C-alpha cells in the first residue's frame, strides 16, 4: 500500500502540483454536500426522534458523535459515517482478491485486508467442470495442488459464519488462482462497488480485477477455459513450453500497474476508465513505463484529473 509518491519535483512542477491540488479541493468542496467529520465530532441531527446510529457513530449525552473520520451519510433515519482510510469492510457478494496465508484442515486462510483472515473452505470450490466437490480424504490431502501458500486468489464474499469468521466462495470458473501478473494494494476506499469488477482490457491483452478489498490484480489475459480437463498430458506439456508471457503483454501489465500505482498515490478513485485513461495518456505522450512514476507524469496526471472534473462539473450544471 502506498501513501504519497516520493518524487523529486523541481520548482515549476511543485507550483503546478500545488495549483492542481488547490483546484481539486475547490471542486471537491463545491461538489460534495456531505458533511465531513473527525473523531468525536458531534453530528447534527436536529433532535429528531428514532435516529438510527450506524457505522462510525455512537452516542454521547444524547448526541450522535462520530467515532471515525469520514463523510456523514444519511438514509432516512439512519446516520452513519463513511470512513475513508480504513481496512476493508466486507459485504456479501463482494469480489475480492487475496493471498493465501495458510492451509488449514479443509480450508485456506487468505489475507484480504480485513480485520481477520478470510476462510475459503475446500467445499466452497467447485471442481473444474463445475461439479460440486465430494468430501474425500484424498481431496483434502491434495489441497496444495489447487492453491499453495502465497498464491493470489480471486473469490467472492459469502458471508459471516456464526462464529464471526468471514467465509469466501469460489464456485465459478472466473474465480480461482491468479497467475502471471502483478498484485497491487491500494486503500480500499478508492475502489467503489460496481456491477463489474472483472475487466478484460482487450487492447492490452490484460485482465484487470478491482477487488473490493483494495487488492488489484493486473495479469495476462486468460481465456476462461471450460474443458481444461479434457486435454491430455501431451498438450499440457506443450503448453508449458509455450507458457511464457510475451514481452509486449508484460510491458502492458506494467503500464497498467503503474497507472494504478499513480492513481492511488494521488488518492483518486480507481476505476477502469481512469486506469485506461492514464495508460493511454502515458502512451500518447511517449512516457516510458519506468517514467510513469516520475515527477513530470505525476504532475500531468494530476492536471488531467483537474480538467476532467471541471468538465464533469460543467456537464452536471448543464
Amino acid at each position, binding site marked *: 500500500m502506498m501513501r*504519497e509518491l516520493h518524487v523529486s519535483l523541481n520548482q515549476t512542477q511543485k507550483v503546478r502540483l500545488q495549483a492542481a491540488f488547490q483546484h481539486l479541493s475547490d471542486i*471537491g468542496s463545491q461538489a*460534495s454536500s456531505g458533511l465531513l467529520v473527525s*473523531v468525536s465530532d458531534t453530528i447534527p441531527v436536529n433532535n429528531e426522534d428514532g435516529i438510527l446510529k450506524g457505522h462510525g457513530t455512537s452516542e454521547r449525552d444524547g448526541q450522535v458523535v462520530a467515532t471515525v473520520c469520514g463523510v456523514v451519510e444519511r438514509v432516512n433515519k439512519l446516520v452513519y459515517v463513511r470512513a475513508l482510510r480504513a481496512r476493508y469492510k466486507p459485504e456479501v457478494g463482494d469480489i475480492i482478491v487475496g493471498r493465501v496465508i495458510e492451509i488449514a484442515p479443509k480450508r485456506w486462510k487468505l489475507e484480504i485486508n480485513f480485520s481477520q483472515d478470510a476462510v475459503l473452505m475446500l467445499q466452497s470450490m467447485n471442481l473444474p467442470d463445475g461439479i460440486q466437490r465430494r468430501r474425500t480424504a484424498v481431496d483434502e490431502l491434495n489441497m496444495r495442488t489447487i492453491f499453495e501458500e502465497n498464491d493470489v486468489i480471486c473469490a467472492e464474499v459469502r458471508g459471516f459464519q456464526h462464529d464471526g469468521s468471514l467465509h469466501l466462495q469460489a464456485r465459478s470458473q472466473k474465480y480461482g488462482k491468479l497467475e502471471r501478473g502483478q498484485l497491487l494494494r491500494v486503500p480500499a476506499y478508492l475502489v467503489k462497488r460496481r456491477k463489474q469488477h472483472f475487466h478484460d482490457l482487450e487492447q492490452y491483452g490484460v485482465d484487470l480485477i478491482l477487488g473490493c478489498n483494495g487488492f488489484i490484480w493486473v495479469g495476462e489475459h486468460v481465456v476462461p477455459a471450460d474443458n481444461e480437463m479434457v486435454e491430455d498430458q501431451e498438450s499440457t506439456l506443450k503448453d508449458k513450453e509455450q507458457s511464457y508471457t510475451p514481452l509486449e503483454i508484460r510491458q502492458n501489465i506494467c503500464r497498467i500497474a503503474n497507472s494504478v500505482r499513480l492513481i492511488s498515490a494521488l488518492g483518486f478513485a480507481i476505476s477502469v476508465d481512469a486506469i485506461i485513461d492514464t495508460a493511454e495518456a502515458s502512451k500518447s505522450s511517449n512516457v516510458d513505463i519506468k517514467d510513469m512514476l516520475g515527477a513530470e507524469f505525476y504532475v500531468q496526471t494530476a492536471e488531467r484529473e483537474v480538467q476532467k472534473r471541471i468538465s464533469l462539473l460543467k456537464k452536471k450544471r448543464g
Partner: protein
Amino acid sequence: MEYVNPLTGFRLDGRRPNEMRQIRGEIGVVAKADGSALFEMGNTKVIAAVYGPREVQNKGQQMDGQALVRCEYSMANFSTGDRARKSKGDRRSTEISLVIRQTMEASILTHLMPRSQIDIFLQVLQADGGTRSACINAATLALADAGIPMRDLVTSCSAGYLCSTPLLDLNYVEDSAGGPDVTVGTLVKMDKVTLLQMDAKLPIEMFTDVLQLAIEGCKAIANYIQEVLLENTKKLECMRGS
C-alpha cells in the same frame, strides 16, 4: 537553578509557565502502515505506526469479544544526547508501552473488531521531555488515520511544579530537575482522565492547579489534532472525487 526567571517569569527556553511548546502533527508518514503519524512537541519528535485491525498473530491471545491492542514503544539510539545504549526491552520502555496501551485501549471501541489485533508502534526520534505525551498524541492521530473507531480523541500533556510555579509541558531540562512531573491523558470531549502519572511529591493544594494546567494543555492539543484530522479527511475526500 532557576527554572523560572523570577523577574520576567519566563522559563529557560523563553516560554511562559502556561505556554506549550510548538506542536505539529503530520499524517501518513509510513507508507505500509494502515495508519501513521508524526507528532512533534518542540524538540520531541515521535513517529507512530498502526497496523490493524488484523488477524491475531498469536492465536492464544485471540479474544472473541474484542480486539487485542498491542503497543511497542522504543527510543531511537540517536534520540538523546548521551551515548548510553537503549535496549528495546528495558524496563522504562516496557512500562511506557504498557501505559500507552492502556490509555489507547480505553478509547478504542475494541468490541467492534472482535478476534483481531491492533498493533501500535511508537518510535521516539528525538527526545526532549514529554515523550510519553507525544507518543499518545501521535498514536491517536495514527489510529484515527487507520480508521479505527474510537470513543473520543485521547490527548496527553505533562505539567510540572518548579520554583513554586506550575509549568506546562516540561522539556528535558525541566523534567530532569527532579521536581514533580504530572503526565495526564484525557478523553477531551467526554471530560475524562484516562492516564495520570506523577513522579515526585507534590503538595495536594498545588496538585489541582497543576492537573488543571495539564488538562488545559490536553484540550489545546485535542483542538489541534482535530484540525489536522479534518484537514486530512477533507483532502482524501476531495482527491477521491465522486
